[in-house]
């Protein structure tokens, strides 16, 4: 585990440099580092700072946020199949964003209100869908599969709403909605990067405060309670933080699915089950996944711009099926 704790951050830095070097024109690493420290040519500096670095940073931050959100969700529900995508939170956020785009932009495709409201709309959508899933699950016993089925149903519903909004809405809205929806970091701007960073920064103190309660949640509910944990309060706080983080990430980069499912699993294997390490691992692995996915679509599909979300889903969906087969048997 120590090896992973050292090599993963190093690998991530290398990957980020490679991602900065790749693009419609290849920039050797010496030029990348030169431009990074203000020593490069004017063209290099513009390409690096205005196009590639926002894209790389955005991929890193969004991946980290989604990884953390997934880990929180899995720990709070004690369900290895849970993730923001599976439970309909990502699609709920999408409904919020599309309604926002529909209601607050004019025919010139320009928003009539500030873009900072987009995350708010995403959060509203995500919270509504998360609450519906949670209240449905609360009625029932807490069998893992039940929660997942409710989540998948609600996700399907949200998806249908999204499709209807795109088709029935004005034509000028459709392409904008579709690009956002597929999950992509290609049109990254620093302003959006800052919004992601702010969301993570705001979440950080809550995460730190939750570390020990999350470790205590390794125990069954009765044992956790009798050792002094306020189980319900911890669970609600963890779920709320997960929903807010997911919504904040999704509202800016779109539906990059399955990162929140895979990153916590990989983190558990590579970093151990201690909440502090698993959170760190999920953040690093999530960041690496999205960056890698974005790099792959840039290299493989050039000059087409394929959304990174397509790649994460290509890897993530089979993995989810694998989990479903393994865990589904035990609870069927």
């Amino acid at each position, binding site marked *: 585990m120590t090896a992973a704790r050292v090599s993963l951050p190093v690998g991530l830095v290398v990957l980020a440099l490679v991602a900065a070097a790749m693009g419609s024109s290849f920039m050797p690493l010496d030029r990348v580092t030169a431009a990074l420290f203000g020593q490069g040519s004017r063209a290099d500096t513009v390409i690096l700072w205005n196009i590639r670095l926002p894209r790389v940073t955005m991929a890193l931050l969004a991946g980290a946020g989604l990884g953390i959100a997934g880990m929180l969700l899995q720990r709070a529900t004690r369900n290895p199949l849970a993730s923001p995508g599976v439970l309909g939170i990502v699609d709920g956020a999408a409904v919020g964003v599309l309604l926002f785009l529909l209601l607050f932009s004019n025919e010139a495709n320009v928003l009539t209100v500030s873009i900072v409201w987009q995350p708010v709309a995403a959060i509203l959508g995500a919270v509504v869908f998360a609450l519906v899933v949670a209240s449905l699950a609360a009625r029932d016993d807490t069998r893992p599969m039940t929660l997942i089925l409710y989540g998948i149903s609600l996700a399907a519903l949200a998806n249908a709403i999204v499709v209807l909004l795109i088709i029935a809405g004005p034509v000028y809205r459709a392409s904008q909605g579709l690009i956002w929806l597929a999950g992509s970091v290609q049109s990254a701007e620093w302003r959006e990067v800052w919004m992601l960073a702010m969301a993570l920064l705001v979440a950080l103190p809550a995460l*730190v*405060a939750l570390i*020990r309660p999350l*470790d*205590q949640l*390794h*125990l*069954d509910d*009765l*044992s956790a*309670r*009798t*050792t*002094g*944990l*306020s189980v319900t309060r911890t669970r609600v706080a963890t779920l709320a933080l997960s929903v807010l983080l997911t919504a904040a990430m999704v509202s800016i980069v779109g539906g990059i699915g399955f990162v929140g499912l895979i990153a916590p699993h990989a983190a558990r294997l590579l970093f151990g*089950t201690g909440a502090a390490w698993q959170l760190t691992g999920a953040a690093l692995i999530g960041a690496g996944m999205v960056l890698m996915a974005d790099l792959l679509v840039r290299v493989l599909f050039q000059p087409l711009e394929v959304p990174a979300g397509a790649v994460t889903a290509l890897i993530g969906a089979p993995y989810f099926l694998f989990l479903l087969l393994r865990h589904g048997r035990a609870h069927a």
Partner: protein
Amino acid sequence: MPEPLITIDAGIMGYRDMTVFNGLTLSIPKGEVTALCGPNGCGKSTVLKAMRGIQPLSAGEVILDAMPLGQWSAKGLARTVAMLGQTPTAPEEMRVRDLVALGRYAHRKPFAGLDIGDHTAIDTALRATTMVALAETPLANLSGGQAQRAWLAMVLAQQSPVIFLDEPTNHLDISHALSTLSLVRQMARNGGKTVVIVLHDLNMAATVADRIVLFKSGQVAAEGPVKEVLTSQNIETVFDIPCAVMTRPDSNLPLVVPLLGRIGKSEGNTNLSAQKADALE
């Protein structure tokens, strides 16, 4: 009876549409081992949960150390009463020492690692349960008896003056069950702890407890010192079986022997077979 540490006063509790207790009054004395016994479904586990604030009362109140349970903070309560449920679970890959450390939750300061006091408590608990050699072993590699001792170590690390145990000998063979009970006895004798233990085996209860409370369908049928409660009359009333209560040759404690004859054969002509015959008619 020594001064009561915990009392339930006119407690009414139940699950959804079923009332388990209606107006229960019960006192648990300080520094003794009290065993809660009775037939399956008589509500003994429910009483334990109610006294720990896990199962809410719909009426009445629980007083712990002269303060209503509702006024205790979650951590304050955990520092006073530790509890081991029937089916505790933790991740399989967790090591024994890390499990025991989770017992320190209510004592730890926020954002600090385990301090000297925590480590002392953990080591003491591991020694008391003879789990020192297995401290670094993952839970998955423990036998049933070892796992139970690991959980008891977690409970001990909580350093609470009161310990609740819900059928801690379930799924253990007789030798592991007895070693678990002797550990419980030590906690009370040497550790000065107040122990409340739910047991369905009356003879095990007799060996470990100072006092026994017998429940029958939501009522206290009998309570008091072991010898006073374990009479053939009380047991026949509570369990509907004929029995003899003998004196154990080793300890002078009561030994309950059900008089069922050979189960399944009719020549025993016991109450049980008579009842069965009644039911068949």
